[in-house]
Every structure is written in C-alpha cells, then in structure tokens.
C-alpha cells in the first residue's frame, strides 16, 4: 500500500522493507548522558521499549470497541484513565479522552493493524457514517519502563499526579505533567510503571529521571 491511493484516507506504511539504521528517541540521550548500569544497589531500573507501534484511535467508543475486539481480541477500556491489555501484555489500549485511545503493539504490527481496523470499521467517508480516525504516531513517542522499590518515590518527585496505590491502581493510565513536560503515565502491573514520552521531550525527561533517580542508584537496562 505504499503507492498513493485515491481512497478517502492515506494509509501509508512508513517502515522500510529493508534493514536501515534506526534511532529511537533516546539515541542521542544515551550517547550524550550515558546509561548508568544496573547494580545490586539499584532501587530503580529504567528500560526503554523502543520501536513499538503506536496508533491513535479517534471516534465513538461503541464502534471502535467492536472493531478492536474483532481485530485484537480484547476491547477498549471501559472507564476514563484506564487501559486494557492482551494476555501477553504486549498489546494495550489506553483511554486518552472520551473519543481517543492509544494502542501500543509490538513494532511492525502497527501498519497491518491499522489496515485491519479500517477494514473492520468500513469506509466512513461521509457524515452519514460514523466518523473515526487512525493515526500512526510510532516515530513520535517511545515507551519507558520503570521498576524498583523507589520507582514510586521517583514519580512523586516528578509528577503532581497521585501515584499512591489507592489512587493509581494497576490498570490505570493518565496523561499528566511530568517535571516541566507532559507524558502518559500508566501502571500495567503491580510493580511496573510505564512512561510514554514524546520524542522531542525524551532527552529532557531522560535526564530528569536520571537526576531524580541518582539517590536510588538508578540503572538503565540496555
């Protein structure tokens, strides 16, 4: 589908078919600020899950829920600020707003997924149909995992959002302030936090996390 189509929407696979060198949003940061190694003393461990597929879904919940169930085998999160995942935990859908969700899948799946979703959702090209939109944003963001006994305290240094387990149970995810930038913060499992950051802010946020984590001997898992 790489040729230009005359259809209603331009769906374009931007992943090269051949191997080319790639750089995640943290490439420069790791080069410039380094990657402190993980040691026994590390009470926080950071890990980048680079090159994942990130799609934004827009539209009505009922319609999209049906489509993602059909294609991914699990539905949209039913409540604001929550996320759903498949059994492997590799695929997730997060509520971002009443008509917006973030889908994260293993890298390379996103174009195929977009095609299948569009197929399931139909053409929807005039206002008699239910409007929806799918946007590939994989190059614009990256996902970091944060684990360790002091991960929560590191978050408390960084975000005004309440990360206490009572206020932030497993399965929650929010867009919020982090230091002087913003990001998506989510808690897919009991012990793991995930941060979805925008590419251009990644270096600032990486430096911030290393700085805030220094007293916990933060390590970066390669």
């Amino acid at each position, binding site marked *: 589908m790489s040729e230009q189509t005359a*259809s*209603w929407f331009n769906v374009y696979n931007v992943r090269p078919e051949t191997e080319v060198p790639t750089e995640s949003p943290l490439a420069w940061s790791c080069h410039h600020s380094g990657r402190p190694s993980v040691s026994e003393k590390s009470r926080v461990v950071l890990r980048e899950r680079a090159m994942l597929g990130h799609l*934004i879904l827009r539209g009505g919940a009922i319609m999209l829920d049906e489509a993602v169930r059909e294609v991914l085998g699990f539905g949209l999160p039913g409540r604001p600020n929550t996320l759903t995942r498949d059994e492997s935990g590799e695929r997730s859908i997060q509520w971002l707003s009443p008509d917006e969700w973030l889908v994260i899948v293993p890298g390379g799946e996103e174009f195929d997924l977009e095609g299948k979703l569009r197929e399931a959702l139909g053409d929807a090209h005039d206002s008699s149909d239910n409007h929806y939109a799918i946007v590939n944003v994989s190059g614009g963001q990256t996902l970091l995992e944060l684990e360790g006994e002091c991960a929560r305290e590191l978050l408390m240094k960084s975000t005004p959002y309440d990360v206490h387990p009572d206020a932030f149970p497993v399965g929650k995810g929010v867009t919020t302030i982090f230091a002087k930038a913003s990001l998506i913060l989510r808690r897919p499992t009991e012990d793991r936090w995930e941060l979805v950051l925008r590419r*251009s802010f990644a270096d600032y946020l990486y430096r911030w996390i290393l700085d805030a984590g220094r007293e916990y001997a933060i390590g970066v898992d390669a």
Partner: protein
Amino acid sequence: MSQSLKQPNRLHEGGRIDRSHTLSFTFNGTRYQGHAGDTLASALLSNGVDIVNRSFKYSRPRGIVAAGAEEPNALVQLGSSEAAQVPNVRATQQALFEGLTAQSTNGWPNVQRDAMSLIGKLGGRFMPPGFYYKTFMAPASMWMTYEKYIRKGAGLGRSPMERDPDHYDHLHQHCDLLVIGAGPAGLMAGLTAARSGARVILCDEQEEMGGSLLDSRELLDHQPAYRWAERVIDELGRLDNVTLLPRTTANGYHDHHFVTLHERRTEHLGETAPLVDGVRPARSRMHRVRAGQVLLATGAHERPLVYGNNDVPGNLIAGAVSTYIRRYGVVPGEKLVLSTTNDHGYRAALDWIDAGREVVAIVDARRNPDGDLVAEARARGIRIIDGAAVLEARGEKRVSGARVAAIDVAAFKVAGQAETLACDTIASSGGYSPVIHLASHTGARPSWDDELLGFVPSLVKGVHAAGSARGVHGLAEGLADGTAKACEALAALGKSADAIALPQVDARYESTACALYQVPHEKPTLRAPKQFVDLQNDVTAAAIELATREGFESIEHVKRYTAMGFGTDQGKLGNINGMAIAARCLGKSIPEVGTTVFRPNYTPVTFGAIAGRHCRELFEPKRYTALHQWHVEHGAEFEDVGQWKRPWYFPQVRPQVRPDATNGERESMAEAVARECLAVREKVGILDASTLGKIDIQGPDAREFLGRIYTNKWAKLAVGRARYGLMCKDDGMLMDDGTTSCLAENHFLMTTTTGGAAGVMEWLELWHQTEWPELDVTFTSVTDHWATMTVTGPEARKLLAEITDIDLDRDAFQFMDWRQGKVAGVPVRVFRISFTGELAYEINVQANYAMHVWKTLFEHGDKYGLTPYGTETMHVLRAEKGFIIAGQDTDGSVTPEDLGMQWAVGYDKPFPWVGKRALSRSDTRRVDRKQLVGLKPKDPKVVLKEGAQIVLDPDHAIPMPMVGHVTSSYYSPTLESGFALAVVKGGHSRMGETVYLPMADGKTHAAEIVSTIFVDPKGARQNV
C-alpha cells in the same frame, strides 16, 4: 580566633540535650561548645552570649528573645565557605552541628562596637518612620549613593556568590488530612486520623515533634508530658498510612488546600548534605501537598509586653525562658523579673526557681490574681507585685534592672511611684496570639475574640483548627480539641474516625488574663524610652503613634508606613501589639482597626528549595529533533525557538575559510551565514525543519473545517497538492501560517510555525469543540512522528534523484505537489514547498529513520556542494523573498491585508470563516494602518536594527511622530546589501519614498520603501 569552652548558663541536668555529645561551633569568630540537641540559640545562651545582632534601623544591640520561629533578633548568616552561605537563618530554628559557623546578620564592623549605632543613639529621636526616604531623598540623583551605605549599615544577609554544592528536591504529596503542628492538639489529631486508616501527613517545624509537651510542667498519665508525646510519635511512625515530617515548615497555604511544606533534611547535620553511599541527598525538600482537608494545630505565639528599652539583651518572652530551661537545660540569666498579664506566664518564674536561680519578683498587671500557678509561686516564696508592670528596662548591652510601678490599665497611665529592681533578665508575657498565618494565606480574615484577647482564624471550607491555634489554650482542652477536630475533618471527607480517649491530665484553675499590650510610662509615648513593637523591623510604639497622627488610619497603611510585620518577620511577635497601639491612638477597638494580611512564606525559604531540581540543565525542557546529534557533531551553534534547540548556523572549522585564518579557526556568524546563503542560491542546502508543527486532520468534514479556519479556499485542493494558508483570529489579525497538503479526499496534513504548533492545535480543538461540534473531523499532532528535512537549491533535484524512486520530473512533480515514495530506502512523503524561493523538496520521514536518510543525502551530496544551513540563513533567504514569519513580522495587530496578502483571502467563501467579519470593521479599513513593506537602506553596508522606529522627517522636533518599525533585517550576500521588512503607516502607497531611522547612537539611516520581494520577484527559481 578566640575560644570559650565554659557554658556558664548550662544546668547540670534536665532538658532534652545529650551532655555526653559535645559539639563545637563558631559565632562571630569565637569558638564555643554546645551539645547535641541544642539549637544555635540555646547554645549561645548557654555560653552567655548576650548580643547576637544589631537592629535593622537603629543598630541597637539585640539578644535572643524567643525560642522558635517568632524570634525577631537572632538572624544569622550561616556558612564557613562562600558556597555554603545561607542568609537570615533564625538561630532558634537552627540545630547545632559540629563545626557550625555563623555570624550576625547585621553589625558592621561587629555587633559589640557597631559604627551605625551612633546614628541610633544620636539620631534615634530623629528617625521617625519614613526617615530614610524623607532625609535622603534630595537630591534624587544621590539616592543610589546613600542607599548603598544605608544597606551596608542595615543589611539583611547576603546570598552566596559561588555555586551551591547541594541540591534540592520537590516531592508531590497527597493525603486525606494534613495536620500542621505536632504539639498536643496536632498529635491527637494525627493519631485520631491515622487510626481511622486515612492518609495522613503530620508536619512540624521544630527539630523534634511534641511542641509544648516537650517543656510542659504538667503530667500526662502521671508521667512527664514528653513521654506521652514519644509514645504517640512512635505509634504514628509505624503506620503505613502516615507520613511524619519533622523539621518541616508549612510555609504557604495556596488555593484548594495546596500547601507547600519545606522540609530541612540535612540542615541539622552540617553545612552541606553528607554523602550517603557516595550520593548527596537533597539538602531540603519542598513537599507540594494536595490535601483533602487541613487541620491547623500551629499553636500560639506568646506576646511580649511593650515597655521602655524592651529590646535590650536580657529581655525575653516568658515562654522562651521555660523552653530554654526545660528543653535545653539552659538558664539565660541569674536574676529574673517577670512581667505578666496572665497565669501561664508564671511558669517561667517557677522553672527559673526550679533551676536554682533567683526570681526577684513577678510583676502582674492584674489585681489579686488567684490561679493555681499564682498560688504555687506564692507558696515558693516569690514576691508578687500585683496591679503593676515593668515600665522600662535598664542597661545597654544587657539588662541591669527593671523599673516597676503600679499602673492603671484602663486609663493607660502609671499609677504609683516607680521602683527599680536589680536583675539581669526580664521575661514578659502579654498573652497568646493564635498562629493564624496559614489560615490568613487562604484569604480568610481572622476575627478578634475579646475573651481570648487574640485573633482567631476564620476558616474556609476544608480547613480546621485545633488547640491553641484557635485559642483553646489549656492542655486537656487542646488534646480533646485535636481529636474532635480530626473527626470533623474526616467526616467532611465522608470518612469516619473514632475519638481517642484522652490521657489523664490534672485540672488547673487559671484566673482571667488582662488586656495589656503597651505598658504606660510616666512620659508620653513619643518621649518615653523606645518601646519596641516589632524588633526585627525596629518599629516602636512611638512610630505607630506618629503614623496615626500623620493620618494613617488603615492598619494596612500603618504597616506600610512603619514597616511593621514586614519581610521575614511577618508580624509574629509584634502585630497584635501594633494593632492595639494603633487602636488606642485612633480611639478605636482592635477589631475595628483590624489586622493586616499575612502572606507566604511563613518563614524564609531558600531559593534552592523553591527551585528544586528545576535548575541548570533541567531548568526548562530542551526539545531536540531526531537529527540533533548530527548537528552537534558538525559544530552547529544553536538557537532557542520556544523550547526547541534549532541549528542557528554551522560555522566551518577550516583554514581555507579566510586567507588569513589560522588553522582551527571558526567562521564568524556573518561568514557562515553568507556561505550558507550562497550555497542555497547557487548549489544546494539542507535544513532540519522537523520542529514545524504538523497536524494530521481526518474526517469527511476536514475540508469544510479548513475552509472555516483558514482565510483562503480549500474546497478544490486536489489530492497530491499542497497549499499555503493564513490563519487569523476572529479579530482579523494573523495568528499563524503554513502549508496544508491534501493526503486523500478526507485526509490532510497541516503544518504550523514551530512556535505556534501547540497553540494552533488547541485553536482547532477550540473551534471544533465549542462552535462546530457537528463537523466530523479529528486532529492529531504528528509533529514528533515526522522528521522534516528541506533540500533546496538549483542542484536539489539532481541530488535527490540519486536516492529516490519518486519521479522528480518537473511536470510529473510540480511546485506545490507532494509525492509518496522512498528516499534512501525509507518510505517518505516529499513536498515541493519552498521557503527559500529556490527549487525545494521537503522530506517527511518517520523520525526513527531520519538520521539514516539525512546521512545518505550527505553521502551523495558532496559533489553538488550540499551545505547544511541553520535558522539564520533560513531567515535571510525567506526575507529576500518577502515571506513573512508569523510572530516576527506580525504581532497580533496585523491583518492579511496589512501584509499585502489579499491573494490568500477568500472573500467570497460561503461560510463566514474565522477573521472575515473583522476585515470590514472601520478600524481594519483604515488607509493609514501599518502595512508590510520592504526597506532598502541607502547605504548598502547598513543593516538596520530590528525594532528600529521609522520617521518621515528626521529633522522634526523630538518627540518625532513614528510611522512604523523594522520587523526583519539582514545582510543579503545575494544582493550584497542590507535589506529589511518593516511595517509603515500606509506603506503600500508609499513605494519609492524615503524614510528615516534615527538610532540611539545619534546616527540616522535613510532607507527607501520597496517591494517586500527582493530576489526573483516572478518566483521563477522555485518553479523549475
């Protein structure tokens, strides 16, 4: 350095200090010793140091007055090295540590022999409020000179001039109940809430939690009160739902129960935070607490009485005397006279006599007081003089006596013959003022309670007060109040808590206090010895009286005229007394006079704590493109564009740059920009344009929406085409511009300016969500998803052709077309959009592959002279073409018509698009509006200053009528001349006219008004 190893005032036993752990410290160059558990103040008193400072205005010697945050005199400068300097630390709040080095904040050359005291002595009477302003005002030009010396003499500490080795931290906290103050009421409240399972934060500003329990004479459950406190603190410390924060001051109470708590984490350990595992922990931490409910258990400040020379060292507030004796094992003198208005003050005399020192007399303003403490004092054989007060202290550097006389409180006069009692210490108690500062921060006005003789806090929804903080002063009552108020607070959150059984407390009868603030003197206030109200700001009763005589009736005006309660003091000791004096002078009651507003911060906070981690490299986010590393490696200088770091220019490091250049010398900016400009005009250049805002727009109504939000037409833009668009606000003024491409019938990609990206996104959502929700369209930012590189110049086609499968034939891929295909093996979109006026291809690559594409272009680019260029060259090239930059050539007051861009205005579009109606307002139709024109300096070497004002007649008398200003100005290597864009009144009809630009250095430049397009007016070069 002199040395003093005796601690003459230290008791052999008692107190909460560790006598086995001796610490040495230095104050004003002398070495002393104290013990673990001391504050700097208690250690100084133990060493018999009387003078700790000179006063702010009169340079009078001053000693320690209080034992806590309310201390007005003992402000010290901390730090043994320049980097460790901390100003304005209260010695009463600074824990002693080994090697502590402090000096007095004021006093020059030193506190014992102070040069400025001459002014205080001779000029004292002649230094009324406003003295400095009144005296040193003339001539006005000299104020700066006077001020320098006045400030040197006065001084309020100084900032470190070297980099702080410490770092600071913020922690965002959330809780159901925040309890401020861990005295009896606060501990009970905290315990009540904690046992209910609620999330509780309990903070206290002192080194140790417990408040008044730590020095109480009373028993709880038949044991010293501090034992009970220790048990409660221990229980709280073991609960997961409780955060205990000692050494933590609640400094500011902000909106909706957002409270900032300043935790001093290592200040008690040393000058800088000691290393833990090789890492320096944060020296202090600002807890930013969002609380469900807040309970203020902040206690009360004892008021000193206002009498003559009440500032001479040796004058203390009564409660502080008790605290020093019972908590620190220090008796701050030998012979005590106590002047009080209430029973509670008697504790000081009882503690004093328990410590084995002499109480000369208790002078009680009341007649026949009969409370239990009074009876105890009588039983101990202490002389009690009732119906009397201390009129004035005797002595200069230390109290040597107290003049005591019977007084008539109601008539405000001395009612008997004065008697002078020899003593070295005068303690006074004028009653208790609830600490209402935090409640006041919320905007609530406190109300006066006639029975309590104090202001009690008014409380906004969600705020509670307990114990002394609301005037419930007794120990048993305070404990009960704590638990009751905690239950109330939790109930407001819909949670229930059980009240806690109170510990056993012996009932104590107290006789009624009397309302005395300023003690009368035989002489009228204006001629009596100075009676200080606010010791920190050197405000006397006379100053307040004078202020009221001069017509200042509002207490807020009196405050500002006299400086009462200013600055770091925030009126802790003096405000109520000051209001009472103002009320007396004005013949009003205290509630009629009212109180001033207390503001954050409650006590001083260092900038480090406020900044936290938001400093140095992390002060502001720096946004980088996917190509940043390449730019760094190629020596780019960077320019800030919003938060983005964009390459500004790429100075070359080659000896051949200039014939006379030495090896390794870098080009100047002008040289680099000239080289980059010519490369683009003659060969090919490349720009990282990734920072442009990019918005993916999808939906059946996308095209309709674009037509409404842009000024020009979008109905017929074909798939595969791009168009330049102008965006106005509804006032008709340009807000942003950019190109939008039709990706598919219902799918568009909008670009915005770098700085406008977030604003435009919000703007689109605003109109969609609030005005046109019926339109089916969605907007998603893809700014970070796509990296954008502009390949531009006559050789651009040849270069790109080497690594793309897209047909670049000029007819197959025309100007303002876009195509999809591969570049360097990576799927991309290429747009034939030009911001340089040359043949240009703007390549959008998924950002993770951008570096590969960019480097591949350079692998093939050498033979075409591919040159990276930065924003400066971009600016020159676009300005040569007359392309505007929204926000530089426009400022929110410029319409498309002012820019001469009527071609981008769809006057006949059916929908009343945003900005249309405003273009026909009478003001936007004016012919003398400032319009965008080109300026060509008569002297081609001149580069006009951006922002320079334009006049028509340079010989006109000043002020000259100004008709416009320069918006963009550069040197053009293509034109070999300076050139500029400018807005000029009626400029479009002034083509060919000469205007003038008078500069600050006296020169005047002449320039000709010309078209905004300086290079290739027909646009042939971009369309090849």
